[in-house]
């Protein structure tokens, strides 16, 4: 158990997880940045936001993913960036879960914002797989947060 904890805290592992997660989110952001209207369409398909609020996340979310991804790759503010990406992943899982529960078969728009022309069954299957993938990515976020808590500089808020 101690060796597992030591392994999870190792800088070698944490650096590689940070880079992998960062590159993944950079890769996810690029197609959305290239075609914001298609990404807005994807967000609309989730049927969770009022029409007036669809475009703002379509514009901001890709840049947010890109910035957090770059921060992780470069090792800047990595704990904050990992926590924010974890929050995003939780939101993605919740959004997909809601739509799975109500049978709204959609394309997730995670890495591709074009309509792939899949059938309803294929889309529902992809949605379930995406939820599993996002849960796996949350495990990577958890590893970063677990490991970096030991590298935190001491707080100076109270003059310690």
């Amino acid at each position, binding site marked *: 158990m101690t060796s597992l904890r030591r392994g999870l805290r190792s800088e070698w592992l944490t650096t590689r997880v940070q880079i992998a997660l960062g590159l993944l989110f950079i890769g996810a952001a690029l197609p959305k940045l290239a075609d914001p209207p298609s990404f807005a369409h994807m967000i609309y398909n989730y049927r969770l936001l009022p029409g007036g609020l669809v475009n703002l996340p379509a*514009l901001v979310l890709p*840049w947010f993913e890109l910035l957090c991804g770059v921060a992780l790759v470069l090792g800047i503010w990595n704990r904050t960036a990992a926590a924010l990406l974890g929050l995003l992943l939780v939101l993605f899982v919740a959004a997909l879960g809601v739509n799975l529960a109500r049978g709204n078969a959609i394309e997730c728009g995670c890495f591709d914002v074009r309509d792939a022309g899949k059938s309803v069954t294929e889309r529902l299957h992809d949605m379930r797989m995406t939820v599993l993938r996002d849960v796996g990515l949350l495990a990577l976020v958890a590893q970063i947060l677990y490991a970096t808590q030991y590298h935190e500089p001491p707080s100076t808020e109270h003059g310690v």
Partner: protein
Amino acid sequence: MNVRRHLLEAATLLLVAVVVALVSNGLASRERKLKLPGDYPNATTVTKAAPAGDSSAPEQAVKAESSPATAQQGSASSASKVNREPTPAPAKPRGAAAASAESAPSRKSPVSFSPASPAFDPVAAFPPHPDKPYVEISGEDAARLHAAGVPFLDARRTSAFEEGHVAGARPVSVWESDVDEKVLALIGEQDGKKPLVLYCSGGDCEDSHLLAQKLWGAGFNNNLVYRDGFPDWVRRGGAVRTGTNP
């Protein structure tokens, strides 16, 4: 835990993302730009597709937070100054060919694309329907209306329009920032009571329905949504053009 520092970093990342997003949107080309706020009717209404795995199967509304027409009230674009009474939508197809297509929706019979007979009057066959945003029509009806010179509007993205569109159609993508300008231009050109045929990619594509809601809000009372859209048009051998021109 340095919570304050982390919150500050998170706020900085979010702020930078918002600023860069707004600047890049301001500098984006017409086809990539999004307008703020968005303007999409029925954004929280879920349609449940048939479980058979066919994405082109008819859909059934399972939840309506607001009726389509009610949502349309809010979505009436800046181009719209017309008040409407909320009504249930969509409407049933009309016209002889529409009726036959409804009874046999999977049939894809060859259609004559020769000019419509002089007796065919589009307005008589498809009278205005001010109580609902659109009426769905079949490929046969679309072919007759096309032959009769009824305007076609392509609701897909401009890039898809340029790759191929119904001959004579105009691009009016609901997802691009200039949609209101195009609707405004249409108000000056087109009598709101005359038929307009709107299409997108068929199947579960809703862009033509969204455009119909927008046009209805702007006073167009005769929006005919070509249900099976451009793929059906191509299958039927309809006239197709590529590039930016209609």
